[in-house]
């Protein structure tokens, strides 16, 4: 924090002030923590029988709980992986269509993309599970979740791809065209490979969003992590402990992914220009569409 815009390097007096404020703030936060801890203790939240089924391998329920959680995690990852793959394919196709589209029908694609970006992902998932069976499409719940997630994320990815292509220097396209390449070749051989490279951090950040959104599967009774946690809680009556565990799992995985996005971005920016992933939200270069990298839930 030596080059902050907000304040100079502290002198002896400010150093003292910072030290005093640090102590004060530290004591304050500790006090809050202790207070919360005491309240929880009073409610018997630290009792062994609430934690043991989750963390004590000797407990008779331990095996059962972790088998359930393990299956649920696999289900969560399956849904996320399928959604990402499909979103990537459809998103790229949408972006290519938008780039290649003639003026006459481009507005249709733009309208479609804007429409889908404005609809909450939870609505997509919920109604995928309601509307599709009515239309005679009978699928396992997994696929309703994947379809809902894909419908939302493919348009987001389409925007990321488009921004990635637009962020390339104009000379790339001109050079490819002057070599006599067809438009499809220009895109598939020159522009898209470079764009994907530049987009990689934004795509990884989007993966975090998808992973978080899989938890909405509980609304349509897909056995992912959050729903399974609910089932475990019904039996063990320890919501705080189970949700804490689930939260920690999600935070660890997503935090690792976020760090990976930052790392990839740094690696890329050493060479060529990357699509800027600002902080960790996928913010695309100025005067371009800002993706809602903050996404669903």
């Amino acid at each position, binding site marked *: 924090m030596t080059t902050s815009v*907000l304040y100079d390097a502290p002198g002896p007096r400010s150093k003292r002030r910072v030290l005093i404020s640090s102590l004060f703030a530290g004591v304050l936060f500790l006090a809050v923590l202790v207070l919360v801890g005491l309240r929880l203790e009073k409610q018997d939240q630290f009792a062994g029988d609430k934690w043991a089924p989750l963390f004590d391998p000797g407990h008779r329920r331990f095996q059962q709980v972790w088998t359930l959680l393990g299956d649920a995690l696999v289900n969560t990852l399956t849904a996320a992986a399928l959604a990402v793959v499909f979103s990537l394919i459809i998103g790229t196709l949408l972006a290519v269509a938008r780039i290649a589209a003639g003026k006459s029908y481009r507005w249709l694609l733009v309208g479609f993309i804007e429409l889908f970006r404005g609809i909450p992902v939870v609505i997509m998932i919920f109604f995928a599970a309601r509307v599709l069976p009515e239309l005679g499409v009978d699928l396992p719940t997994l696929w309703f979740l994947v379809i809902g997630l894909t419908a939302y994320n493919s348009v987001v990815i389409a925007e990321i791809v488009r921004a990635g292509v637009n962020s390339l220097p104009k000379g790339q396209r001109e050079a490819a065209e002057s070599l006599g390449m067809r438009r499809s070749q220009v895109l598939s051989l020159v522009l898209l490979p470079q764009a994907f490279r530049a987009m990689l951090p934004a795509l990884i950040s989007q993966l975090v969003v998808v992973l978080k959104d899989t938890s909405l599967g509980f609304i349509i009774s897909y056995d992912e992590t959050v729903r399974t946690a609910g089932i475990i809680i019904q039996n063990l009556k320890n919501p705080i402990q189970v949700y804490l565990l689930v939260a920690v799992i999600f935070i660890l995985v997503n935090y690792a992914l976020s760090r990976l996005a930052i790392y990839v971005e740094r690696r890329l920016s050493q060479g060529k220009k990357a699509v800027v992933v600002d902080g960790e939200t996928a913010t695309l270069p100025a005067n371009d569409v800002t993706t809602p990298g903050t996404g669903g839930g």
Partner: protein
Amino acid sequence: MDVIFDNFSLYRDGFLQTLRICALAVIGSLILGTVIAGFRVSPVPPLRWVGTSWVNVFRNCPLTVVLFFCAFGLPEIGVNGAYFWFGITGLVLYTSAFVCEAIRSGINSVPPGQAEAARAVGLTFGQSLSTVVLPQALRTVVPPLGSVLIAMIKNSAIVGAFGVGGDLFAVGDTLTSARGEAALPVLIGVVLGYLLITIPAGVLLGWLERKVAIAR
């Protein structure tokens, strides 16, 4: 499409409830997010630590888990209230992390030379902050902050799905589950309700962006 007109008052109430949730959550998350951003850029290390952990926890945790935590955890530490307020609290906690990051990245985007120059001409900390740093930071903050808030409007549907009830999502749920209406027309009504909020918000944001845009 008759289902939309037949249940128009239901839709209207749902729309208003969604607006209410959004308005309360926007206010709450802007305030909380600014405070946390203040923590993250503060010279006091414990405040920075708290700010950083806050952001890492809430940004990487699904909103559903945050909501469940509010509903089950808050009563245990003695905070009781209506389910509605647990829903709002969860949405505010979750969104505040994103608001914080938008604001912080805005502050970080101001070149250090600006503040150094302000100090060099003798402006005090308050003056340099209010006349040099913040005016520039706020302009950069507008686009990311706008998309965070639009995402929050969409997340309000999760609060509804979580059981707060009465909002547009709940209207869709009631009509399709309890009354067994055909899902497609109900869906169209619900989606129109959300688009009625998100599209004007997007247009407003685009206008605001152009208005405050600065070439750097």
